[in-house]
């Protein structure tokens, strides 16, 4: 198979023969180490809610070649989501107010998970709930699925901002964060890592990270969106149907780097237990992915950039690999948190 890393035309009937699942010809090892139960051939993932459940994005690149495919957060029952407008473009980013639209866990298990398995994707299933009991029930039904063997990890979305009651953002409170993880962890077989997804919209993210790990999380995904509002100055009312929305895109990348930095620093100092961090927030290029890695991320998710460029996850993987190749860095995982040493 010829490998052409230079092309960026990942689409249609012109999909290049790029294999991101193996050590590449220039000798750069992209393997991502997220603990003993989650070793990935490369660190690039989709971000939850930015790639639906795979079929649509698979038209632009092979989702099985990604380090992992992270699904849209699924709750117990079908969710209509909110009315529209659901989004507003902002400088280098956007606000979204989808409201966790989705089919519910039973339909997900029946339709989406088998498809992800059929194409050979490593699925990281994002779960959500309005109560810790709902999180646990979603996890239980997922684990019972015939195709559960396609699930590489479970991401516990305790930080979705688009809920009716801000008090329901579990990741704004250490005890609530611990509470959700404590109920989910017993439902999930050992060997399936739990990643707690955190919000940066807190006074101090380190105690939240510590609380999630104490509840049974094996790793952390940082960051979810930041809460924002856009006002329609013509109509003189909030633009979004749901008033508030989650801010994402390159505009929030420095916030992601800061959050990852703070939590990784606390781990290095032994103030909280060490655990892998999956970095997410505004990644658009390979250099952005490298920045989050240097702050302490062991793998990288691409989210809003997909809306701009549906082949972004694969392109970022190539750019990251090329960047390391040019710098003569043989192993990606050696760079995790490297900026803390210099």
């Amino acid at each position, binding site marked *: 198979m010829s490998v052409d890393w230079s092309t960026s035309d990942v689409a249609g009937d012109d*999909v290049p023969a790029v294999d991101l699942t193996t050590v590449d010809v220039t000798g750069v090892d992209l393997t991502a180490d997220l603990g003993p139960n989650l070793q990935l051939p490369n660190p690039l993932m989709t971000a939850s809610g930015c790639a639906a459940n795979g079929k649509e994005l698979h*038209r632009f690149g092979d989702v099985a070649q990604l380090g992992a495919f992270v699904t849209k957060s699924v709750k117990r029952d079908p969710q209509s989501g909110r009315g529209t*407008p659901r989004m507003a473009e902002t400088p280098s980013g956007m606000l979204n107010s*989808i409201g966790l639209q989705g089919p*519910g866990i039973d339909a997900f298990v029946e339709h989406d998970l088998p498809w992800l398995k059929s194409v050979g994707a490593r699925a990281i299933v994002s779960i959500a709930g309005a109560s810790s009991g709902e999180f646990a029930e979603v996890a239980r039904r997922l684990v019972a699925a015939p195709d559960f063997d396609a699930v590489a990890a479970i991401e516990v979305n305790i930080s979705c901002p688009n809920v*009716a009651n801000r008090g329901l953002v579990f990741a704004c409170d250490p005890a609530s964060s611990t509470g959700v993880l404590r109920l989910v962890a017993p439902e999930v077989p050992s060997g399936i890592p739990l990643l707690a997804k955190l919000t940066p919209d807190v006074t101090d993210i380190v105690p939240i990270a510590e609380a999630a790990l104490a509840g049974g999380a094996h790793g952390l995904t940082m960051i979810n969106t930041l809460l924002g509002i856009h006002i329609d100055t013509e109509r003189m009312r909030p633009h979004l149907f749901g008033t508030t929305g989650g801010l994402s*895109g390159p505009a929030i990348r420095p916030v992601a780097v800061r959050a990852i930095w703070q939590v990784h620093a606390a781990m290095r100092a032994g103030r909280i237990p060490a655990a892998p961090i999956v970095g997410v927030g505004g990644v658009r290029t390979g250099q952005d992915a490298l920045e989050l890695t240097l702050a302490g991320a062991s793998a990288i998710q691409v989210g809003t950039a997909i*809306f701009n460029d549906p082949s972004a996850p694969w392109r970022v993987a190539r750019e990251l690999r090329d960047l390391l190749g040019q710098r003569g860095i043989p192993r990606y995982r050696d760079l995790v948190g490297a900026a803390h040493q210099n």
Partner: protein
Amino acid sequence: MTGRDTGVCQATARVAGNAPAAAYRHLTLDAPGIAQLAQPGQFVALTVGGPTSALLLRRSFSIHRVDPAAGTVEIVVSDAGPGTAWITRLDDGESVDIVGPLGRGFTLPDAPGAAVLIGGGYGSAPMFWLANVLRENGFAIHHVLGAASADRLFGAELADPADELIVTTDDGSQGERGWVSDPLPGLLERTGAKAVYACGPMGMLRAVTEIATAHGARAEVAVEEAMACGIGVCMTCVLPVVGADGVTRMSRSCVDGPIFDATTVRWDAVAGGRVAVPADCLGAPR
């Protein structure tokens, strides 16, 4: 992976033409993969501002027409903000990232007859290509083009001489004074048309749906919902649509549309630039 047939292309398209058309710009883009695949009613999604642009979201445009032999895709762009303004300023030879063809196109009725094609503003952009396809399939074409004023009309000169053309403007500056839906009842009665196609603002589409239904005609409408991605992953362009099972779902206009059977759209939920979730929608908040 090479040779995978996914029905959609992402390409760097060269601008082959950018000409004024009334208040709009008519762009011709070299995108052979898309030109060969596209059907009337489908759309394309363009990035704006280049790879480091602070405007991240794609802008979606109904395809005006394609020339598969020349490999070109044509769109009509209205300068409605900084993103679309950037597109209207593209010069010949410049490049733009394009994804398409996207969405479901118009469908043709089983039996030929008269067809009424309605375009509000530059919503008429896909209608002349559709008219050609319908005419080739034995339909008699009746165009209704409407706009607020003469300068906002698009394509009156593009209608085939064999087709009927009715023009309306809100201010009477061209054609009949009034709304684009005003001539519709008389036209449906006179022609007996059972096929109606419409593209334009939501209020217009709702009016067309009600008139067509009252006259026993089937209408297909091209909806215009704000989209971030155009490819089905962002979930922003939804509207409530009744499925074959009678259940209302928040459906993505980019993959389930943008062409919908007009009677399946829950127009009752659309008001004042917003679309609410009907209480009987699947998964509606309780």
